[in-house]
């Protein structure tokens, strides 16, 4: 298996190179450049031109690409045009927030989706099932930002249960317990807004999975052994119907690092989603390319991870 993984990783290299080239071309195609945003009457146009020249933006794209890829291979993704610090640092500041938010969101998503999906599958056709599927459609129909605003309005402002913005209470010293708690506390509402809407596919998959698995012979075998009904569901049916979800975990991992613009914006949560869009809008090329490579890599690793997880969950699957 390790060999297979290594082989897959090696195969990612050409994919990443093509991706980077593609991104570079796309970036060049975008109107404007990182310095368009500097236009103000206070600004000397010559200064902008000087900066452009210094940044090499007046070079043809292939020269810029070459320079970039040579540095990138050495782990240097350049400096952010916007933030004036190395791209790795910019990303480093955000990625932690996003990963935490994503993890908590994922946990919430599964905490919600798995019982609901199991219930809907077990009692399919019941009123509970119908209610769950209504919830599913509701969450499918409502845009994230509307929902996040609704939640923040209810739980943040009206009820005052949760903080409404940021990742941590300002002024709490890092490293203390209060700090950790504050971070967690700040995660709950954004994670919930995300999770409540993200359950749709998991519930659906689980539900159909359970309905299918219910009919299987091994379930009969389990019952004929005298395994109590709850155990039959939790042990036999659950594991078998979780397979399609396991195949999506890889994509969730990808989402883990991509962040959610809407949530981040509404909760003033500095994360990767915002960073990406801001960089796009500001034409911060170095951040854009680095981010896309990062997303691309995580996507590729995500699929690999999915395959590994699948092969762990399901002994019949061998990754080749």
């Amino acid at each position: 298996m390790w060999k297979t993984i290594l082989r897959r990783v090696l195969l990612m290299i050409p994919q990443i190179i093509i991706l980077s080239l593609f991104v570079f071309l796309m970036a060049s195609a975008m109107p404007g450049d990182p310095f368009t945003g500097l236009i103000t009457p206070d600004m000397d146009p010559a200064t902008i031109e000087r900066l452009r020249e210094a940044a090499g933006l007046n070079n043809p794209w292939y020269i810029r690409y070459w320079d970039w890829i040579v540095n990138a291979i050495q782990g240097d993704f350049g400096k952010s045009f916007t933030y004036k610090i190395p791209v790795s640092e910019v990303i480093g500041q955000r990625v932690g927030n996003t990963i935490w938010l994503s993890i908590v969101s994922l946990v919430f998503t599964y905490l919600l989706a798995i019982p609901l999906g199991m219930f809907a599958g077990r009692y399919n056709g019941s009123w509970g099932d119908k209610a769950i599927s209504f919830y599913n459609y509701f969450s499918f129909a409502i845009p994230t930002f509307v929902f996040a605003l609704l939640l923040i309005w209810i739980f943040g402002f009206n009820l005052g249960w949760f903080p409404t913005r940021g990742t941590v209470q300002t002024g709490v010293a890092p490293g203390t317990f209060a700090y950790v708690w504050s971070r967690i506390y700040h995660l709950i509402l954004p994670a919930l807004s995300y999770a409540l809407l993200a359950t749709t596919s998991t519930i659906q998959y689980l539900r159909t999975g359970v309905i299918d698995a219910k009919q299987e012979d091994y379930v009969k075998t389990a019952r004929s052994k005298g395994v109590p009904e709850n155990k039959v569901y939790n042990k036999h049916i659950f594991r078998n119907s979780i397979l399609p979800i396991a195949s999506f975990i890889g994509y969730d991992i990808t989402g883990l690092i991509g962040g959610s613009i809407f949530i981040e914006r509404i909760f003033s949560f500095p994360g990767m989603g915002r960073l990406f869009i801001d960089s796009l809008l500001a034409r911060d090329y170095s951040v854009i390319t680095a981010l896309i490579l990062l997303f691309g890599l995580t996507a590729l690793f995500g699929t690999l991870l999915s395959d590994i997880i699948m092969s762990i969950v399901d002994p019949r699957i061998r990754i080749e």
Partner: protein
Amino acid sequence: MSTGKPLLEINHLHTGFRIKDNYYDAVDDVSLTLEKNEILAIVGESGSGKSTLATTIIGLHNKANTKISGEVLYQDLNLIDLNETLYNRIRGNDIGMIFQDPLSALNPLMTISDQIEEALIYHTKMSAQERKDRVLELLNQVGIPNPARISKQYPHELSGGMRQRVVIAIALSCKPPIIIADEPTTALDVTIQAQILDLLNDLQDETEAGIILITHDLGVVAETADRVAVMYAGEIVEMATAEELFTNPRHPYTRSLLNSIPQSEDLEGESEELHVIQGTVPSLKNLPRTGCRFAPRIPWVPKEAHEANPTLHEILPNHFVRCTCHEHFHFEGEAE
């Protein structure tokens, strides 16, 4: 054979499935007994209700879609009245079940030992180690070489024969006095089938369990069963000891069935046409519910030959036949 109280006694059992808004009995007023140390074979056409009978005994039907009435008496308990919790104590512990398709009967995601162990968890107070030992013992018992290794493997890594042995090991794990085997060898080839049947025989010698063996392979019946019940359209139409049934079959269905076996061929010449029962198997919904249910498939037998409400007649000691038509039956074309 029957001394004292039978191990299992089934009286007037009905199992109806719901199709749309009505219930249709797949098992229709079946009564039979199972003795200790006995192999009772149930044969019959596909769809005649054999599996339904088995799953009713072990209580695997979804109450929402089935209607069950009658008695399944085991140790003075009517099983069909039991609630889930009580039934779960019986299942696996007192009744073991062997299913037909060995691959689908095993959970693909669990190791062999986990699956065998499961029944022990719920029915015994064994420690983990004791259970492990018991699993190895069982695997050994069903003739699996190298049980220690196999027990850690997954079903898909085993051959069909091995899997079927595992299924048997599961059924045997708690040494149940009753074992129901629903077509345990249909998916296997003859050599392995033979081994499995020998295994069942040997095990019975050991545990004296009563076995209900469901099959449509009359060869298997002839080689293993003590008693045979022939089912047709949800009813038992004939019941006798194996010897008696094969030497003196009475019910038209039994006779037709025996006739359609391709075997007594002359190796030299052209083999003759096999006997075919006229008509097709009616669906559950369209089963004849009155009179002799086999009558439509032997239309040349005059109506008067059939009973209006066919009952089982004990024509010889321990040989029961339903409907009087057997007395008048002859194969088509044959002289009466």
